[in-house]
């Protein structure tokens, strides 16, 4: 399955989660979560376990019908899962969605809402290691 087929299939069989209009708090940027030199910002630490809204871009997912994608602060066309030698930026956010989602182009800004978790986790489907993630998430196009 090439990427175009994957996108078409994803769009056909998945349901876009609905966006809650009652999102809590301000819309965050990815840089609000991290400190320079990595580590998490005091703001992120204070929000651990709570609902946040954050803007970013959906990196090209590896698998169709997934509940997982990576949010990047800038458009990222190449999927490091798929390309040998590809590298993730260091300031990213693992997103676990409430339901199967429709893939959005990597260059289209999205707004994601979910529960912030600051803890180490390995995604069982992809082996992706994360130190920060959003759980039970929904998103919409910006």
């Amino acid at each position, binding site marked *: 399955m090439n*990427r*175009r087929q994957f*996108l078409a299939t994803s*769009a056909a069989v998945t349901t876009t989660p609905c966006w809650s209009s009652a999102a809590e708090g301000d819309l965050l*940027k*990815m*840089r609000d979560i991290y*400190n*320079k*030199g990595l580590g998490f910002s005091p703001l992120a630490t204070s929000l651990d376990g709570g609902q946040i809204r954050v803007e970013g871009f959906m990196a090209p997912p590896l698998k169709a019908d997934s509940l997982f994608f990576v949010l990047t*602060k*800038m*458009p*990222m*066309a*190449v999927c490091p899962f798929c390309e040998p*030698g590809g*590298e993730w930026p260091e300031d990213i956010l693992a997103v676990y969605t409430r339901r199967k989602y429709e*893939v*959005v*182009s*990597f*260059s*289209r800004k999205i707004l994601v809402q979910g529960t912030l978790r600051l803890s180490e986790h390995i995604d069982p489907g992809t082996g992706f290691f994360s130190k920060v993630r959003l759980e039970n998430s929904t998103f919409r196009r910006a």
Partner: protein
Amino acid sequence: MKTITTLSLLGAFASTTAMAQDLPQADNTWFIAAQETIAARVNVQPNTSKAKNVILLIADGNGVGTNYITRLFAGQAAGNYGDEHLLPQDTFPHVALSKTYNTNAQTPDSAGTGTAFHTGVKTKQGVLGVDETLARGDCAGVDAATVANASEIFSALGKQVGIISSARLTHATPASAYAHSADRNFESNDGLSEGCEQKDIAAQLVDAMAAGTVDYAFGGGRRHFIPSDLEDEQGKTGKRTDGTNLIEAAAEAGIQYAWDVDTLAGADLSKPVLGLFTSSHMSYEADRPASEPSLSDLTETAIKALEGSENGYFLTIESGRVDHASHATNAYRTVTDGVEFAEAIAIADALTNDEDTLIIVSADHEHAVAMAGYSGRGAPILGLSMKVDGAGEKYLEEPNLAQDGKPYTTVSFLNGASSVMKEDAQWNGTRNAELTQEMAMDMDYTQEVLVPLSSETHSGEDVAIYAKGPWAHLIGGTMEQNVIFHVMHHAATAE
């Protein structure tokens, strides 16, 4: 002869005739400033001393257009319109245009261009320290195609050698100063192609330091020096699969290791130092933590370490991440790293003497960047194109609109990942109708782009060369990029 005669007449007009004539614009501030410029240019004299020291500063991807954007950004940050500003390199007396193509590529890459200015010969895209007879990836042919590089040549002249990069030290531009490789991607042994018996690039750097052809090497890329099962000081593992710890190997050869601001400050600068400050590339200046030295910090440290060298030194400095930011179409980090590059130039200039130090500033190539019109003066260079005030100077607070009725930014790129054409719209697209000045000037904004590519590309257009010091006057006209090396070598060997 004709050129000389014409220049002489122009000089005579500028310095005498115009002053003697009663012109209505004689009191115009632009006219007076131009007269002062001519007077300064008339006094520029060739310096034919031997260059004890040679400093080459390259901002990767900092072509004339990119330099212009950085100039305006720096000028506006200083509270001015921006276009009247001069970056340190803009003040250098001798300038030329550099033709950057590789021998097999109209649009160059940094391996071929680095080899040009670090060895004196152009070569193919993707190879380091070898001539154009080598096919990329042909490890067996490296020895036969090897040419001497800057660290070998200048150390043979008795000079100490320093290499600095804000990218990985094993990346193309810094590697071209010390390595010979069939492929720029052979940064550590894990990247070598099967059956390739060439030494990887990181191993070549440690060899060069042990051999005394490189004395100080500061940059990123620690992961290529340590094993894949070893965590570094920042908790990141290495890349090497041969079990070799090159930092330990360097230590056994008497080379000190620094990995942050404090360990660099604690190093004995009378002896060689390998500074590896990050696992991969060093941080963009906008994201740099205080524990990580800046490019200008490293420049100052290197010059202070090298200035005691009896026979002088060769120091090559790369601002590597100007290029990376443009590849990401994030103009903010392009210019903020460009400003830091300018700071490194200013420090290099301040710590050296024009009488005995040749300083050359250039770029390896330009990017597919473009500036749209027509903005009034002072319009934020990273923001929207704003209307001209026909009755004044400063821009009007009203954006120019395209035919689709939407605003657009002054800076954009031709191609890249932030294309307006989206895969989920069958590669059709529309521009953002809600783009505001605040959004466009956000540090993480990626410029509007037409052609969708995974990464924005270099371009093949000329870049500028700026020079001062001994034999800097050899920089002039439109030159092949490899001539830069010959100017440096001529200056260092002149009698």
